[in-house]
């Protein structure tokens, strides 16, 4: 178990490491026009980085999610995306359903 001092240092390090990217982004934004190619490229990279993170979270999850079977995670994800599409893009139903489905499949 980490000591209190180490924990505080870790919180500071994590917060600074995170804020750097946000703040650099805000500074860069001042020089980027919405109509420019650079903006379009950043937009594509942002979406694909996010998608990469999500793909990783499902296939190689960190934390408790790693204790569920890969097949079950993908199955739950596909079902919930279908519910999202067929419920006229309601987000509340598929998200609640995902928790119930995964808890259920994992407990049997």
């Amino acid at each position, binding site marked *: *178990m980490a000591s*209190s001092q*180490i*924990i*505080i240092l*870790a*919180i500071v*390090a*994590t*917060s600074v*490491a*995170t804020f750097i*990217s*946000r*703040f650099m*982004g*805000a500074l*860069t*934004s*001042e020089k*980027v026009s*919405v109509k420019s190619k650079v*903006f*379009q*490229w950043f*937009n*594509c*990279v*942002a*979406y*694909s*980085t*996010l*998608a*990469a*993170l*999500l*793909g*990783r*979270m*499902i*296939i190689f999850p*960190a*934390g*408790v*999610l790693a*204790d*569920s079977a890969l097949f079950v*995670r993908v199955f739950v994800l596909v079902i919930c*995306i279908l519910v*999202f599409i067929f419920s006229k893009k*309601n*987000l509340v139903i*598929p*998200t*609640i359903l*995902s*928790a119930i489905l*995964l*808890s259920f499949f994992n407990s049997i």
Partner: protein
Amino acid sequence: MINHKIFLRGLKSLKGSRSPAIPLGACFIALGALLKDAGFNLQQSAASSLFTYALPGQLVMAESLLVGASIVNIFIAVWLVNFRLYPMTVSLFPLLDHKSQPKWKYYLSCHFLAVTSWLIAKDGYKKIDKKNRIDFWIGIGIGTWSTAILMTIIGYLSADYLNKDILIGLAIVNPVYFFCMMIGAMKNLSISIAVIGGTILGPFIYLISTEWALLFAGLIAGTIAFLFGGKNGE
């Protein structure tokens, strides 16, 4: 200073059938429980969400602490996993930019940038007059940020009542919500290529390098999407 009506419109994005409150709640409750496990006290857990407010980075921090990683290693690991916030900020803030707005609003409110708030802002900015978009963003940011902090506290306090199956169930809510939001955002070819390419390349490159996977997958898939998606990105 801040247009209250527009600010409230941003804040109200927490309500309704597209509400992010449930996925945010689910993942930060799970985080609160995890931080308790990692030896954090209540104040430290709340401070982590208050000052970091980026779930993947906080997960990396907690897991690194559990395996006894050094502070420098934690810093680098978190920076790499949260570097996505840089392109995300650059692809959002120019849309909110207006000459009449003071710069401090942008410098302070960039702290609210996280996947949830970004997706909501990208989804709704067009409905807001360009002059007031930053206030709309601040409304979204305050709403999602305070939800995250509150839920971390609730998760910490309820950790003893959450069994493993419930925690696993909570952990899937966030990726499911994000995937749904991204599929909703796939309105043109370049975004569609970016999302599908990133989803495939992310786990694939992770097999080669765990730390650099996100950065490389994002750059490669994003550039392909930019080159082949045509000039219709938003």
